[in-house]
């Protein structure tokens, strides 16, 4: 039997971790769930993103989402304990989901296996970047320090095509966002680690004007260490944004990520995001 590897990296499906990164670094992804009525689907296991959006378009009632259970985390940690001496488990912000809490409780039931649960205070690909940063470290301590240091620097700028979904999910304070209206607005939202709410930074009537506005906000926040463009069923627009950014931000990779169905339940289709870790 081979010697135990020093530590494993665990995240959840809201990290929108590219498959290629998962395979290269051996990152473990625990799925959240999406529920259409009584039917439960594990994110990206029981349902593909395309299937999800097809169902969303015809659903009479909007789906709901749920975090993995502590038991599901316990299973994963128990399995990892066999050939790892520890684990860093990096998750969607605790204000947005109960996932990190489930990981913490799940870890307590696996004796003798050290799990550092990190509340990333963010969502989607900044999480993926944090996982990659961790995977490239030599020890669990180093990985934890490198990730902790970056948590305060993660930002998610999201452009939604409609308020409908995020409103249903109750993740935005409407009064503060000044969006208590029937009018169909394209809200530009910001998730920062220091704010308890998803903040509305701007609101625009049309998509073609909203995209450059989002890029403006991002540009004001430079420099960044990592940046990605994420989208829900809007690959062409995401590619255009990334291509334009690559022209000015030389040396940055700027991957494109697809928003998984749990997060997409709250963003709705055609959402776009500029997500980054500040330098």
């Amino acid at each position, binding site marked *: 039997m081979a010697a135990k590897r020093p530590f494993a990296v665990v995240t959840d499906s809201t990290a929108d971790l590219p498959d290629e990164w998962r395979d290269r670094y051996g990152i473990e992804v625990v799925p959240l769930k999406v529920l259409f009525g009584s039917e439960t689907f594990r994110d990206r296991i029981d349902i593909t993103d395309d299937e999800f959006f097809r169902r969303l378009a015809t659903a009479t009632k909007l789906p709901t989402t749920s975090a993995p259970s502590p038991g599901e985390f316990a299973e994963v940690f128990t399995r990892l304990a066999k050939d790892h001496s520890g684990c860093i488990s990096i998750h969607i912000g605790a204000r947005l989901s109960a996932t990190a809490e489930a990981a913490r409780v799940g870890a307590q039931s696996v004796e003798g296996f050290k799990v550092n649960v990190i509340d990333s205070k963010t969502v989607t690909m900044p999480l993926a970047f944090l996982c990659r940063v961790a995977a490239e470290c030599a020890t669990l301590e180093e990985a934890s320090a490198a990730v902790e240091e970056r948590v305060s620097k993660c930002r998610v700028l999201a452009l939604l095509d409609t308020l409908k979904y995020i409103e249903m999910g109750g993740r935005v304070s409407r*009064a503060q966002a000044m969006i*208590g*209206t*029937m009018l169909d607005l394209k809200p530009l939202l910001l998730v920062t680690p220091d704010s308890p709410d998803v903040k509305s930074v701007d*609101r625009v*009537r049309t998509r073609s004007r909203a995209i450059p506005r989002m890029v403006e906000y991002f540009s004001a926040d430079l420099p960044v260490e990592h940046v990605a463009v994420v989208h829900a069923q809007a690959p062409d627009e995401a590619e255009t944004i990334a291509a334009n950014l690559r022209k000015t931000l030389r040396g940055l990779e700027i991957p494109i990520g697809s928003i998984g169905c749990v997060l997409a339940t709250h963003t709705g289709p055609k959402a776009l995001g500029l997500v980054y870790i500040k330098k």
Partner: protein
Amino acid sequence: MASNSPPGVDGPLFKRALLGSLSWLAANHEEANRLNVFPVPDGDTGTNMLLTLQSAVEDIKDSNAAEVSKIAKLASHGSLMGARGNSGVILSQIFRGFARAVEGKSSLTPRELAAAFEEAANAAYRAVNKPTEGTILTVAREAGRAATAAASEPDASVPSVIAAATQGARAAVLKTPSQLNILREAGVVDAGGFGLQIILEGMLKTVEEVDAMPDRPAAARPQAAQAALELPEGGWGYCTEFLIEGTKLDTEAIRNQIEALGNSVMVVGEPELVKVHVHTDDPTRVIALAGRYGKLLKLNVGDMSTQHRRILESEAAGAKPPRPNGVGLVAVVAGSGLVEIFQGLGVDVIVEGGQTMNPSTQDMLIAIESVPYDEVILLPNNRNVILAAKQVASLTKKKVHVLETHSVPEGVAAVVAFRPDRSGAANVAAMKDEAERVQTIEVTHAVRDTRSNGLRVKKGDVIGLINEKLEFAGRDYAEVVNKALGKLGPDSYELVTVYRGAGASEDELENLQTAIRSNFPGLEVEVQQGGQQHYPFILSVE
């Protein structure tokens, strides 16, 4: 004549003359309304002038001032507070110029009266950015010139000067169609100029009667002047209600102070929250006084005499977190759906009004005073409200930015761009940009036969206006909207927002949507219940 100096215009005479004007205008303002050039239903020039004049006379009714200067000053202040619509605002500037010209004088000689008429016209010209000939301005000037000519006659008298001014005004009104194409096409004279003529006629009727000597044939006693002198005792009060939120509020002390400003006073409540109700002629003063005790909530001021105007405080105003930039938003809007939309976008106080119901300067002032911020952005959302809105800035200590929005779509676009974390000036710049980007299509029915902009329009026709300019006429809404969208060039736009008015049926809405979607598949269509009067549909194209 027994004396060399004929009787002059003193305070009591000027007061009676103005009351005569008021009653004569009251009897004739509908006529001015009908002179509406444009076929859109905004024929309220006569009404606006009447309401402005009522406000001018309001404080005068109870004044026994002997000096003409005092009466003129009251008229100037009152008309400024009550100015509605463009003609109303110009009228208020005429009063202002007159008051300046007679400052310090107890009585006017015919010559001084003529000079005051001329100065009144000059002041009105100065108040307008781009004076247009063939309007009330021209009529005011011609009246002043005729008065001056008459005053230099050897037997000049007050009635002869006013008679000349009236005659000058009449002649100028008749000439207005030759000065303005739009009047000639429509075959009417200028409504605002006609209103001024009526005001002068009312004065003339009054002074002729006063001047009537026993040896002269008794002039028929003008009915109008009689009516004016029988004004209701209570005057035109405002029913003013609000809550004061504060600490250790003394209801007794507040009641005592407010009782001095009106009647039907009710002040009740607890040390933290007091409800105030009063009928007053000066709601602004009441509000200013109450504002010293604490924060005002649920402010409602109803004009009990003329039009019923409400000032709605946004439902959640008290619960909203304070805005980081300390900038408030006030918008002039009518229609339940549109009111909700503007409130939902963050507007603090709505002044109900618009196309056929121009709010007065005072309505807007009250709204601005009731906003819990010292800096306020005011959105008139109608061309006819802009001038009155601009008057507000000089009447309050608050910093007021008037963002010149000409239509509901411009107003919505502007408010959407408002950001609570950006300074007032930066917001104004960004909001202005957004307002200018939006195209407005308004759809309504012609209220009269007319020719305008090369179009022949029959009463009842559906007409379409692009950015307030009449462009198309037709038989149904869909046809007119199709033409308008075609003219704008649908390729340059992506979103059409349809605000459905109170007069549009479900079927008409359905037909309109279907027509837009099938003719312009590249445009996204969004429907909102605007609830506005007179315009079955307002469309925002962006």
